[in-house]
């Protein structure tokens, strides 16, 4: 097992204090970045192969390069700490145990794009996380690692925290920006992308907590070192994998990208609990895998090739005693509840699918229901403002495709004995 990077010191009881962070890490990355030109930081991050850990896997350096360099006026960094994708509980570990690593990463990103203001949007339920982060910001400012002329660099960086209030859609980056502006979290039509017109209409980069926490290590140890970890230079570095469901030891495990799924469960999560039948590899928006894919390398491109996605890296294991129709319905209900309602295919489609599946559950399945569900779901893909709709449709279609017999059985008989 390789030594973890981001989570190396999380069991140190002082890891979340400035003293602990200075002892363990010491802001080496930020100090180095302060001596670099912004475009060199961007190039270094591009060369590292770092891709977003929030869900979409977009190359981080490339995203930054879309921010106009000579924009007259403020630019913003927004940190996505909304962690709402069901199955996901990894950013919380960094927030609560390594808040200074996140702050250092934010500072590096801010240097790269030329921002002085950063906004952390943290999910409302993470009261403890917001408290730890708030203290870390205060301490960093007092000790000159943040704020005006931090580290005597002639640069300023001000970090604030906004707590979300229980809306999954505010994890979607433009929904998040709307929410941060004091509005309902309705995702925006793109273009324009946030890089040119984001928070308050200004150029904005939205990055996930884990993505930013990779930066201090990339800058201090170099792009080459980072890109040599993982499957290949396009799937590089380690990943935090939150593992839950039918495993012996649920938890967050850091492993190189590309680790085979089964090995991750066996070597890190204590092994399967019962015989696994279905595994969701990247949060509930990610299409489900069946046993043909249990050895799959856990990286962005391998999962895309298997018609699923790495998403947030959240793994949910369902064993043979679980009713997969029930899990699929629960996922559809989640999306129906969380659809923001702007687009009809999403608003109506999620609700309609939920109603059909509830009817089937009550023993009133009809011939043609399977086709009807597939038809509705297909109409929800590529037709809406954001991909919540696609996530719902693709998840359900994968359950139907891989476990069709189980769906047919439920259409005939309603609940099964495993319900």
């Amino acid at each position, binding site marked *: 097992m390789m030594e973890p990077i981001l989570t190396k010191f999380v069991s140190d009881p002082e890891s979340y204090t400035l003293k602990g962070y200075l002892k363990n890490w010491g802001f080496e990355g930020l100090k180095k970045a302060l001596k670099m030109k912004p475009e060199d930081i961007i190039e270094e991050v591009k060369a590292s192969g770092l891709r977003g850990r929030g869900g979409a896997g977009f190359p981080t350096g490339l995203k930054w390069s879309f921010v106009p360099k000579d924009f007259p006026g403020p630019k913003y960094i927004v940190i996505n700490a909304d962690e*709402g994708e069901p199955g996901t509980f990894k950013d919380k570990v960094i927030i609560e145990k390594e808040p200074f690593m996140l702050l250092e990463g934010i500072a590096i990103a801010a240097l790269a794009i030329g921002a002085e203001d950063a906004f952390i949007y943290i999910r409302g339920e993470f009261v403890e996380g917001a408290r730890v982060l708030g203290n870390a910001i205060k301490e960093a400012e007092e000790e000159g690692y943040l704020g005006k002329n931090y580290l005597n660099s002639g640069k300023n960086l001000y970090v604030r925290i906004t707590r979300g209030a229980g809306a999954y859609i505010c994890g979607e980056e433009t929904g998040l920006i709307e929410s941060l502006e004091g509005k309902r979290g309705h995702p925006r039509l793109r273009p324009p992308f946030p890089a040119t017109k984001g928070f308050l209409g200004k150029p904005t980069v939205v990055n996930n907590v884990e993505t930013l926490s990779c930066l201090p290590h990339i800058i201090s140890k170099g792009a080459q070192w980072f890109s040599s970890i993982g499957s290949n230079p396009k799937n590089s570095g380690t990943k935090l994998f939150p593992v839950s469901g039918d495993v012996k030891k649920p938890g967050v495990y850091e492993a190189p990208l590309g680790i085979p799924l089964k090995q991750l469960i066996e070597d890190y999560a204590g092994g399967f609990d019962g015989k696994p039948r279905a595994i969701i590899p990247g949060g509930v928006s990610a299409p489900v895998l069946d046993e043909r894919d249990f050895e799959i390398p856990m990286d962005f491109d391998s999962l895309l090739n298997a018609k699923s996605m790495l998403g947030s890296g959240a793994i949910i294991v369902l064993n043979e005693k*679980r009713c997969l129709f029930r899990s699929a319905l629960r996922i559809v209900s989640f999306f129906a509840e969380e659809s923001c309602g702007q687009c009809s295919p999403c608003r109506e489609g999620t609700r309609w699918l939920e109603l059909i599946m509830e009817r089937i559950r009550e023993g009133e399945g009809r011939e043609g229901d399977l086709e009807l569900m597939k038809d509705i779901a297909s109409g929800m893909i590529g037709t809406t403002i954001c991909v919540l709709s696609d996530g719902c449709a693709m998840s359900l279609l994968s359950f139907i495709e891989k476990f069709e017999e189980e769906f047919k059985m439920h259409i005939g008989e309603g609940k099964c004995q495993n319900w």
Partner: protein
Amino acid sequence: MGRLEGLQDWEVKANDLIKAYPDRKASLLPLLHLSQEFWGCINEDVIDLISKKLKLTPSYVYGVASFYTMYHFERKGKIHIRICTNVSCQIKGAEEILKKLEEKLGIKEGGVSEDGKISIEKVECLGACDRAPVVMVNDHYEGPVDLEWVEKIVSQ
């Protein structure tokens, strides 16, 4: 608005929050959180207060607040239990726990017990699936919980 206790204190904190953002409106969610901490819910008086403070219409403030599930328009119980029933918690028995809670308290999810002591709310993934089935008791996570836990919390 005389019914809002501690208004002066609130003003001080609200002004600090407003100052922290480059735009007044951006402090709306923070002000809603602050007010709910102060007065337990977002009632008409609170909506009025915030709308005046931020120079927004009351209907705008209400429209935003109602989009978010964590803002309540009526007081919750002294002990507010949020129970996750998403996939990882569902397979570990979250729905059975919810049912038992509802039975024992004689209320449905979303409701408050008659004495105002306990309320329950069914929620989506709480971001703590390693502790499934997991609940939040006010601001604290507890889990994994079981049917015995229900007995304990109900007898409190």
